[in-house]
């Protein structure tokens, strides 16, 4: 076996990067509220726009009859070329292509996590407009918006520890400018949804529970 110093250095950098990340646990009042409103005798349809996370799927499986896992950020950054071939409204086409649900699909709960921080306004509107077609009346949408000027280069992988606690690894390295959606305007960018409850966290994140309104 040949030892190559460069590979070793890269491996060490990877280890250092992982080692420099810190596991953060944060209390989530929005998750707690969402759980408080689940009925034990009902099962729910859950959509998670984040990547597949073992703990989260385990958590959903306690009350969900069906779970969709989409990793939408990953799909947006490596879209299927066939989705964009036809031209026209590319963003909209790609949402319809990336999230192709049957007409009878109806979500009760949507976990967006911090994805909105990474979507420009028109993309956010089109995503929410697309999803609202597949939501039950008064479906709930859970989102984390960062108020700071910068956000990590990629969305955070949140893990649900229990009904009121989340954990994640702090991001290291590159950051990007935050879209900085503010509370009064945010609901305007989300056709069909209104803010149901919001909680400002110490770390500058703001938790939102949206609900699909009748209007």
């Amino acid at each position, binding site marked *: 076996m040949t030892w190559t110093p460069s590979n070793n250095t890269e491996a060490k950098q990877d280890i250092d990067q992982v080692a420099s990340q810190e596991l953060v646990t944060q209390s989530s009042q929005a998750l707690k*509220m*969402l*759980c*408080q*409103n*689940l*009925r*034990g*005798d*009902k*099962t729910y349809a859950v959509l998670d726009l984040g*990547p*597949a*996370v*073992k703990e989260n*799927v*385990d958590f959903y*499986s*306690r*009350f*969900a*009859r*069906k*779970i*969709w*896992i*989409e*990793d939408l950020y990953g*799909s947006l950054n490596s879209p299927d070329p066939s989705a964009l071939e036809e031209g026209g409204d590319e963003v909209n086409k790609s949402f319809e292509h990336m999230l192709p649900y049957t007409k009878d699909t109806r979500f*009760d709960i949507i976990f967006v996590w911090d994805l909105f921080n990474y979507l420009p306004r028109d993309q956010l509107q089109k995503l929410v407009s697309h999803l609202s077609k597949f939501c*039950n*009346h*008064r479906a*709930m949408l859970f989102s984390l918006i960062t108020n700071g000027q910068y956000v990590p280069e990629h969305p955070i992988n949140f893990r649900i520890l229990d*009904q009121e606690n989340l954990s994640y690894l702090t991001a290291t390295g590159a950051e990007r400018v935050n879209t900085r959606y503010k509370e009064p305007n945010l609901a305007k960018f989300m056709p069909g949804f209104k803010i*149901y*409850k919001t909680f400002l966290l110490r770390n500058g994140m703001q938790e939102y529970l949206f*609900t699909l309104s*009748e209007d």
Partner: protein
Amino acid sequence: MWKKEDTNSDRSSDSNTQAYTVPEATTRSERGACIGATISIKGDLSGGEDLIIEGRIEGKVDLKQHKITVGKKGVVRAEMRARVISIEGDVQGTLYGEEQIVLGKSSSVRGDIIAPRVTLEDGSKFKGSIDMEPKGTEKMQAHNPMAADIKAVTVGGDSVKSAFDQLQKGEQGAKANPRMG
């Protein structure tokens, strides 16, 4: 009009899509049958014993009462039915697990999963839906003490219907429940 070429091409396509049944006598072992890394199969596969897939399969795999294991090198583009399905390789398709489906740490799965118990190991990549089925959900909740916790929070916290349920029915849940602000 009858043409020799047509007949040949029909036979050729038949041979690509015919159903393969794993012959017990030639493949039985303690671990079950194995499709090696260099084997590629297009068509339907059924059998009466466990199956390990290290090669490539396109079509359908039906081993209802047995276990399918897709190894790290396995590539499957197929609908699979089995008692237990365990995946470490690359799978696209609809998976039906009578008891359980396990997505191992090196697995990459895209498609729909229908099983009463689904386990995702850390590192597994999955995109698609997981359908627990009504029967499976009941079974799982009965064995899952945390399901009772959620029920306790919901029912124990409020003697009235939960606000979420009221919201679902279009009632004014937020007003009815002071916790909802």
